[in-house]
């Protein structure tokens, strides 16, 4: 029953939140037109994070929810980041030239020298 009382007088003005979300949407669309990559990234993803936060806090009432729900959500996000961190060295840089393989390089340069003869 505690949540009843809390939401009754603590809830934000939902229409105002929606208005801010729309403004943020417009900014994020406008971002690329400036042509600067960093700005585009910030307006695109930075704003996305802000919008998600606002929806989570104000519409999903995470601010008055039991705190372990927030821990649960954060933990899942951490796992997604963990997956990204563990996989990206292999998938993002798939050419496989992140490290030097001296023996292989010696062997191939010998082979090249042999072929040249």
């Amino acid at each position: 029953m505690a949540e009843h009382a809390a939401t009754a007088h603590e809830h934000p003005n939902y229409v105002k939140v929606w208005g801010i979300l729309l403004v943020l949407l417009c900014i994020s669309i406008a971002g690329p037109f400036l042509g600067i990559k960093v700005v585009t990234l910030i307006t695109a993803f930075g704003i996305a994070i802000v919008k998600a936060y606002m929806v989570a806090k104000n519409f999903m009432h995470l601010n008055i929810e039991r705190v372990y729900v927030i821990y649960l959500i954060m933990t899942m996000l951490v796992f997604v980041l963990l997956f990204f961190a563990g996989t990206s060295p292999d998938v993002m840089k798939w050419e496989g030239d992140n490290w030097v393989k001296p023996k292989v390089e010696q062997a191939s340069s010998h082979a090249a020298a042999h072929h040249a003869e």
Partner: protein
Amino acid sequence: MRPIANTRSTAGIPTGRLAVWWVVASEIVIFGGLLASYVMQRLAHPEWTSQTAVTNVWIGGFNTFVLLTSSLSAVLAHQAAEHGDGKKAAKLLYYTCGGALTFICVKAYEWTHEISEGYTLSSNTFWSFYYTAAGIHALHVIAGGIIMLFVAADAKKNLELHRVELIGIYWHFVDIVWIFLFPLLYIAK
């Protein structure tokens, strides 16, 4: 004899809401895994830019507007349900469903256009991710819309009003997924 199990709240939170949060939690990892895979592949393939340039930011932006507005009507429906006004809650839920339908129709138009131009599921791995990610999201929109219709039907008779909040939480999650899909597929391409 009514079942006792789902009337207890030892964890201090109504069971239905607890369950929806667990559903959202597992969906975060599903979408997170998919989007992380997309980001990794996108960063590994700068040459995809010629494909990603095709997506239309205005259609995507309009769909974002539709979803954000439907989230507004969903949370207003929750507010109405809290005050015991089942009819108003149902009406607002129907608006949310309308938003879902609009989203799907716009997407259908968008995809028809892109497919007719030759950008199909298998034409390039970017498009594979595009259709898969947006497609799985769209399935969640459709599922959410259908469930919402059932919840609204009950709410109109002032029955099971707590479910308005629950479908709302799910709906906001679907909205948040799109909030991230939109920049990934339309802006920072």
